[in-house]
């Protein structure tokens, strides 16, 4: 699966999936059973959400003996930050700087 911004945005557009990411951020490398115990949802439902997160690259799984552990992968969010957010926030900062210069010039 090649990283795709659309998949990341879709994966993030759901409160349960954001909850799962927050849970992994707090404590990484958890099993389905551990994650399921924190949600009022069927095992199958949690699996489906984890699958969406995995397809988006936001969760990476690793086998450890008989267990499948889920890890938060922050890289896709970083890529969106670097490609989108930086561009817009840089613009905002520039706009404020322009405003400051204009106001100071008129004094």
């Amino acid at each position: 699966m090649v990283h795709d911004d659309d998949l990341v945005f879709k994966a993030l557009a759901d409160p349960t999936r954001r909850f799962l990411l927050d849970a992994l951020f707090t404590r990484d490398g958890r099993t389905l059973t551990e994650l399921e115990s924190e949600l009022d949802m069927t095992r199958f439902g949690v699996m489906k959400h984890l699958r969406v997160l995995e397809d988006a690259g936001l969760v990476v799984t690793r086998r450890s003996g008989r267990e499948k552990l889920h890890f938060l992968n922050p890289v896709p969010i970083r890529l969106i930050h670097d490609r989108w957010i930086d561009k817009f926030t840089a613009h905002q900062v520039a706009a404020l700087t322009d405003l400051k210069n204009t106001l100071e010039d008129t004094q």
Partner: protein
Amino acid sequence: MTISTQTTVKVHRIYINAPVQKVWDAITDPAWNGRYAYHAPSQYDLRPGGLYAVRSTPEMQAHGAPELLIDGEVIESEPPTRLVQTWRALFTPETVAEGFTRLTWELDEERPGVTRLTVTHDVENAPNVAASTTGDAKLHEGGGGWAWILSDLKTFLETGQSIQG
């Protein structure tokens, strides 16, 4: 209540539009690995027991960084797909005290010309190393950490330019 031991492994995965060998070179060859992210060249002696050393840039030293920024040892080297090494951050007394952590680089050909890079950092008993490699905007403009380094590695390999210029 869940009973579980806290894992202290951080996994970072990125897909890069570049062949596996090119990604390997960008990580291990100082002619390439000093040209993105922190722009601090890394020396690798790619054999078991071989030394790994990252030297700080003059700009970093002006901000008080030690000349030798990160050191470690190569444990396994299977060019161009797998590299296991130790990794010790020498930039703060806290990270020095935590000693050597273990870092694994895995490069897989997703399809011809596309590499799946997975960086696994075992930071057990090294909370300060974990914090400094997670990326913190307060510590470093641009956030720093593995996610930021890998994002810039991708940009560099795909565009020939680093985000940092």
